C-alpha cells in the first residue's frame, strides 16, 4: 500500500512523560508496545486495519524492540499464531474485524482456549456493529461465552482503553486464558489523548531467541483426553482466577451516585452514550457524576458474581444497559441475583430495544421508562420533551420533503477497474440471459447497489463460488460467482475453486484481480505487484497487476483448464469472454480473471509523479473524457451502465430541451470506461476522449499547429 503512516509510526516511539494525541486504534497499538508484546498478527478489516498497517510500516522500530509482525492470510491463521503463547512466556496480540473474522478464526480459537495460554494472548477485535457497520449484526460475546474466553469492552476513553490493554495481558496470564479486547467502530476512530509510558522490549523476542523448544506436555495439546481436563479447568481454575483479578485490580469501575436505591450496570463501550442520555435528563454532569450509581463493566465476560451482588443488594431496581442480542449479561445477572436470593428488580431489554445500536436516543427512551417507574420524582420532563421534539421534527421534515431522500451508499471510486467489469456483466446478460449471481465480500459488493443491482447471495469472504454449489445443479443456465483477489486468497481458493474442481462443477468464476485487498484499505497480498516493478515502470499510469501471475499459476496448478485473463477496462472483450463462458461446450469450471490495478493505489503513484514532472517543466499527458452536450440526448443510459461519480448531470444549455444532459466533471481520471461503454453498448456518440499534453516537444507543437491551420480552414463555426 502506498499510504504513509510515518507520523503514526513516530508516535509509537513516544516515551513516559509525553502525551499521545491520536486515534483510538493507534493508542491500542502503542499500548501493545507498552505491554511488552513479542509478536503481533492479524487480518485487516475496518475498523482495526490501522493497527496492522501501522505495525507493518513501523518495521524498523519494531526490529529495534525485537517485536515480530505478521500480516496473516486470514483470521484463522492469525488466531493460530497465538499458539505461540501456549507453551512460551510470550505476549502476543492479533487483530481482526468481528464478528466475521471471529467466525473464520473460530476453529483455532477453540483449540487455543482449551489448553489455555502461558503468555498473555490478546485479540483486538473491531466490533463492526451499528451505524457504519459493513457486516452482519452479531455479538462477539457469544464466542467468549462458549469458549470461556475473557471479553474486555473498555470505556471509550483512550486512558482507559490503554490501561485495559496492559491489564488485559496480565489478566490473560493470571487466568491462563486468551482475552478479546472489543472496540466499537467509533472507539477505534476516536481522537483523544493519554499519558504515555515507555515501551517495553520483550524479554523473549527476535533479538533474544529461545534456545530450545518446550518439553513435551500432552496436557497442552487440544487432544483427548487432555481436552476433558481443560473443560474442567476452565470453570474450576481459570475463570475464578480471572474473576479474582478483575475485582482485585479494579478493572470494572464503580461510579457512585447521590442515591443508592437505584443503579445501572453498563458495558464499558456504551458508558459514554449512557452518560449523555442521563445528561439529557439532567441526571449527570459533564464528568459523569450524578444521581444514579453506575457499575461500568470494562470486562464484560466473565462477570464477578460477588461484585454484581454487592452492587445490587441495597437497590430496589437495577437497569442493565447491554447492546445487541441476546441479552447475555442481563441473563447472567438475573441468575446471580436469583441464586443469591436478592430481590432487586432487574430491567434491561424489557425497557431498552432488543436489537440495534444503543444510541443516546435509544438509551434515553429506556431510561425514561426505568426511572419513570422507580423514581417518578426525578425531573424527567426535559428529557421527554426532547425525545418528543426529535420525533416531531423528523415528521415535519419528512412531510416537507415529500419523498424520502435518495440514499448515498458507498460506491466504486472514480476510475475503479471493477466498474467496467460490471458494465460488461450487465451487457452480457442481454445475450446470455439473466444469470444467478453469487456475490462476495469486497469492493465488488458495491455492485449490489444502483446502477447495477447485482447479486443473489452473500455468504462470506471468498465464499461466492462455494455458495452456488447447490444452485448450479438445479438451474438450466450457468451461474456466475464473483470474488476479489483478497477473497480468493482469504478463502476462495480452497472453499470455492478446489471444491468446484473436485466435484466437476459447471460454473463460471470471475476474479477481480486488482492487486490488493482494497475494501479493507488496500493492503498487499501475495499477488500484489512488487515494489521494484512499481519503481522501475516509467509510466506511472500503467496498471501493473499483470506483472504478478501467482493467481493464474495457482489456478492452473490446481487444475483449472478454462482460464481467461482479460484487462478489466476492455468492456467489449470482457463481454465477449463472459458470453463465451456461458455458451461454451466446456462443462467444467471456467475462470475469468479481470485484471486492472486498484485505481486508489495507482493514483497514489500518479499524483506525486505528475506534480513532479510539471514542476520540472517535463512533458505530461493527461486524459479526460467528456460529453458533447448538443449530441447528448438526456436519456442517461451511459450512467445506468457506469455510475461513476464524475459522470453526472447538468442542465442542458439548449433551451428547447427539458431533460438534464450528461457531463463529465473534474476528477475524471481518464480510465476509458466511458469510451469503452459507448462502443460496447452502442451508446450515443456524444462521448469524446480529450488528451491534454502539457509541456509538449517542439516537433509535436509544430505538427499540431500545422494540423490546426488546415482544420481551421475547413471548419464550420
Amino acid at each position, binding site marked *: 500500500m502506498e499510504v504513509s503512516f510515518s507520523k503514526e509510526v513516530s508516535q509509537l516511539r513516544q516515551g513516559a512523560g509525553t502525551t499521545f494525541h491520536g486515534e483510538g486504534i493507534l493508542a491500542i497499538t502503542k499500548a501493545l508496545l507498552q505491554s511488552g508484546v513479542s509478536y503481533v498478527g492479524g487480518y485487516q478489516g475496518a475498523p482495526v486495519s490501522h493497527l496492522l498497517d501501522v505495525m507493518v510500516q513501523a518495521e524498523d522500530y519494531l526490529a529495534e524492540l525485537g517485536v515480530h509482525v505478521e500480516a496473516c492470510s486470514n483470521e484463522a491463521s492469525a488466531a493460530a499464531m497465538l499458539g505461540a503463547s501456549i507453551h512460551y512466556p510470550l505476549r502476543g496480540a492479533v487483530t481482526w474485524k468481528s464478528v466475521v473474522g471471529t467466525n473464520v478464526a473460530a476453529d483455532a480459537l477453540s483449540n487455543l482456549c482449551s489448553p489455555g495460554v502461558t503468555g498473555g494472548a490478546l485479540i483486538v477485535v473491531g466490533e463492526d456493529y451499528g451505524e457504519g457497520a459493513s457486516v452482519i449484526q452479531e455479538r462477539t460475546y457469544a464466542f467468549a461465552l462458549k469458549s470461556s474466553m475473557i471479553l474486555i469492552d473498555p470505556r471509550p476513553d483512550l486512558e482507559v482503553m490503554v490501561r485495559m490493554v496492559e491489564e488485559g495481558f496480565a489478566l490473560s496470564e493470571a487466568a491462563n486464558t486468551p482475552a478479546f479486547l472489543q472496540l466499537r467502530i467509533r472507539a477505534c476512530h476516536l481522537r483523544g489523548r493519554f499519558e504515555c509510558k515507555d515501551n517495553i522490549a520483550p524479554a523473549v523476542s527476535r533479538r533474544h531467541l529461545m534456545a530450545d523448544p518446550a518439553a513435551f506436555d500432552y496436557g497442552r495439546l487440544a487432544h483427548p483426553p487432555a481436552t476433558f481436563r481443560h473443560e474442567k479447568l476452565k470453570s474450576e481454575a481459570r475463570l475464578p482466577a480471572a474473576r479474582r483479578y478483575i475485582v482485585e485490580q479494579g478493572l470494572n469501575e464503580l461510579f457512585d451516585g447521590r442515591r443508592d436505591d437505584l443503579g445501572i450496570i453498563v458495558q464499558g463501550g456504551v458508558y459514554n452514550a449512557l452518560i449523555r442520555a442521563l445528561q439529557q435528563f439532567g441526571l449527570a454532569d459533564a464528568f459523569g457524576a450524578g444521581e444514579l450509581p453506575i457499575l461500568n463493566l470494562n470486562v464484560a465476560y466473565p462477570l464477578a458474581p460477588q461484585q454484581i451482588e454487592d452492587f445490587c443488594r441495597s437497590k430496589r431496581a437495577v437497569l442493565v444497559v447491554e447492546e445487541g442480542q441476546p441479552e447475555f449479561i442481563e441473563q447472567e445477572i438475573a441468575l446471580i441475583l436469583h441464586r443469591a436470593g436478592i430481590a432487586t428488580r432487574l430491567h434491561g431489554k424489557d425497557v431498552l430495544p432488543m436489537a440495534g445500536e444503543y444510541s443516546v436516543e435509544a438509551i434515553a427512551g429506556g431510561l425514561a421508562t426505568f426511572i419513570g417507574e422507580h423514581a417518578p420524582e426525578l425531573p424527567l420532563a426535559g428529557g421527554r420533551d426532547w425525545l418528543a421534539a426529535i420525533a416531531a421534527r423528523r415528521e415535519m421534515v419528512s412531510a416537507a420533503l415529500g419523498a424520502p431522500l435518495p440514499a448515498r451508499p*458507498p460506491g466504486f471510486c472514480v476510475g475503479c477497474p471493477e466498474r467496467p467489469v460490471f458494465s460488461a456483466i450487465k451487457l452480457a446478460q442481454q445475450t446470455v440471459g439473466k444469470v444467478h449471481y453469487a456475490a462476495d465480500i469486497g469492493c465488488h459488493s458495491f455492485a449490489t447497489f444502483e446502477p447495477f443491482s447485482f447479486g443473489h447471495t452473500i455468504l462470506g469472504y471468498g465464499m461466492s463460488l462455494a455458495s452456488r454449489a447447490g444452485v448450479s445443479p438445479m438451474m438450466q443456465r450457468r451461474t456466475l460467482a464473483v470474488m476479489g483477489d483478497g477473497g480468493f486468497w482469504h478463502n476462495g481458493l480452497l472453499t470455492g475453486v478446489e471444491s468446484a474442481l473436485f466435484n466437476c462443477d459447471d460454473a463460471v468464476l470471475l476474479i477481480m484481480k486488482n492487486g490488493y485487498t482494497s475494501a479493507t484499505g488496500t493492503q498487499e497480498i501475495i499477488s500484489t505487484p512488487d515494489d521494484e516493478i512499481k519503481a522501475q515502470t516509467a509510466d506511472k499510469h500503467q496498471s501493473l497487476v499483470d506483472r504478478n501471475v501467482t493467481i493464474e499459476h495457482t489456478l492452473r496448478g490446481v487444475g483449472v483448464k478454462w482460464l481467461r485473463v482479460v484487462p478489466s477496462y476492455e468492456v467489449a472483450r470482457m463481454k465477449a469472454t463472459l458470453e463465451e463462458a456461458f455458451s461454451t461446450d466446456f462443462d467444467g469450471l471456467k475462470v475469468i480473471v479481470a485484471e486492472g490495478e486498484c485505481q486508489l493505489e495507482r493514483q497514489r503513484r500518479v499524483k506525486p509523479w505528475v506534480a513532479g514532472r510539471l514542476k520540472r517543466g517535463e512533458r505530461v499527458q493527461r486524459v479526460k473524457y467528456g460529453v458533447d452536450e448538443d449530441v447528448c440526448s438526456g436519456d442517461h443510459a451511459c450512467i445506468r451502465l457506469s455510475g461513476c461519480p464524475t459522470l453526472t448531470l447538468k442542465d442542458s444549455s439548449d*433551451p428547447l430541451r427539458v431533460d438534464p444532459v450528461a457531463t463529465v466533471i473534474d476528477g475524471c481520471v481518464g480510465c476509458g470506461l466511458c469510451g469503452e461503454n459507448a462502443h460496447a453498448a452502442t451508446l450515443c456518440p456524444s462521448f469524446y476522449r480529450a488528451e491534454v499534453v502539457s509541456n509538449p516537444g517542439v516537433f509535436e507543437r509544430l505538427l499540431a499547429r500545422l494540423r490546426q491551420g488546415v482544420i481551421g480552414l475547413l471548419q464550420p463555426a
Partner: protein
Amino acid sequence: MTAVPAFASVPAFDSLHAAADPQAGTRPLTILIAALGGEGGGVLAEWLVELATRCGYVAQSTSIPGVAQRTGATTYYVEIHPQPISELAGRRPVLGLAAVPGAVDVFIASELLEAARHAGNGMLDPARTLVIASTSRSLTTAERMQMGDGRSDGEHLLRTVREHSLACVAFDIAGTARACATVPSAVMFGALAASGRLPFPREAWEAVIRASGRGVEASLRGFDRAWQNVGGAFAPAAGFVQPPQSLPANAAAGFPAEVADIVNLGLARVRDYQDAAYGERYLARVRAVLACERRLDPEVAQGYALTRETARFLALWMAFDDIVRVARLKCSATRFARVRREAGAGDDDLLRIVDHFKPGVPELAGLLPARLEAPLLRWAARRRANGKAPLELALHLDVTRIRGFLALRLVGGLRWLRPHGMRFAREQAMIEQWLACIVDTGDWGLAHELALCGRLIKGYGATNDRGRDNLAHILTHLAVGAQPAAVRAEAVRRAREAALADEAGTTFDQVLREHGAPSRPVKAQPINFVPRRVQGSR
C-alpha cells in the same frame, strides 16, 4: 504565553439554555460534519481537535469512515469541553461518541442533500443549531440514472434546512474549494472559524493549517475564501444559479408572444438541421397546432402552453439525431473550443480529441431510399437471428488530425442525402401521426398531455426505438377510446411518466394495464446459453 480564549465570551453558546440548564457552562460544544468520502472530513475533524487542544481545551472526534470512504456519505463528530484544561484539576469530562439528535451546536455539510438528510434525521434544533450548508450538489446514483430528470429540487432542500436551523449560511463549498485548488475540508474549516461559535482567534486556526505541512498555501486560500463568504455575519447566501434562459426576443410573424421564443429557437434548429424549406414545414406544423389551440382555448386561459410544448418537442424531433447531424456538430469550431475548456487545457497545452462512434447497419441504412434500405435491414436481421452480434462499425476518430477531421466533415456534408432516406420518411410519418392525434382530440388537457409525450422521443439506436414504440402505443391505445377526455389525459400523463421510470418498461406496462390498454408486444431477444442436462435424460 497567550491567555486561553474563553468559551464564555461566546454568547450564542452560553446564554442559549443558561436559564434552564444547570449544565450550561460545562456542556460540550458539539460539531457535526457531514461530508462525502474523499472530501477530507477526517482531516477537518483532526484539525478541530488539534485547534482546541492547542488552545487549552479537551476535545474529541469520532467518525465511521469504514467503507463509506468510497464516495459514500459519512459523518464526523467533534466535541469540545468548554472549560479550559487548566480549570479541570485533572478531571476528565465524558465526551460523546456520536451526535445526538437535537443536541448539535454547529452543523456543517459539504453537500446540500446531506444537509437535508440530517435535518430529516432530527439532528438540527432550530433553537440551537447553527448551520453551514453547501449549495453544491453531488448527485446520487439514484438521481443520475433516471431516464428523465431525477434530481432533487435544490431550492426545496435548502429551504428545509433553513427552517430547521437557528441560523443558516449557505454557499458553494465544493466550488470554493475548486476555485482555490484545495479540498473542501479547508473551506469548511474556514467557514467554521468564521461562524464565531468557537472562541479561537483566526491566527490559531491558521496555525493548525500551517502545522499540517501539506498543501498549506492552497488550504489557507480556501480558508480565507470561506472566512469571507461566511463573514461572521451569517448573511443569507445568494440563491441558486438558474440555467441561462436568455433568448432572442424577435417573435416569428403570426405567433403570440408567449410562444415566440420557442418557435424562433425551433425554427433556427430545423433550418440549421436541414434547410429553409424544412423550416417552413416546421412553421406550418406549429401553426396548425396554434389554430387548434385557439379553438380549444379561445380565452387563452392556458397561455398557449399547448403550442409552446408542441413547438419545443417538434423542433427536437424534426432535428432528429442521425450521423449527419452528429458529424456536423462534432467538427464545429465552437465545439473544439468547448472541449478545450472542459478538459481544462491551458493555452500552451496541446489538445487531441478522439471521438467514439459506433454506427450500425440501421443508422447507415436510414440514409438510403426504401429499395436499398429494406434488403440491408433484412440481411442484418437474419444475421441477428442466427445468434451473431449486430454488425457495427466501432470507430475511434481523432478529429484533431486531418484525416479524422476530413472524414467527419464529409459525413457532416451529407445533408442533401437525408430527405431521400427511409429514416427521414419514417420520422415524418410518425410526427404527422403525433400531430394529428394532438389536433384531433378536441380537448385542451388531453392535447397538452399528448404534446408533452414528445419528450419520449430522444436518443439513438435502441433508446430511440424504445421511445418511439412507447409513444406509438400511447397514441394508439390511450389517446383514443370511449372514455371521457379527462380520464384519457390522466392515463396519458401517467403512461408518459412511467415510460421514463425504467428501461425494461415494467412500470409502463403496469400503467397500460391499469388503464385497460394492452401491454406492449414482447420483442424477441435471442439469448445464447448451454442448457444443463436434466438428470436421467440423454
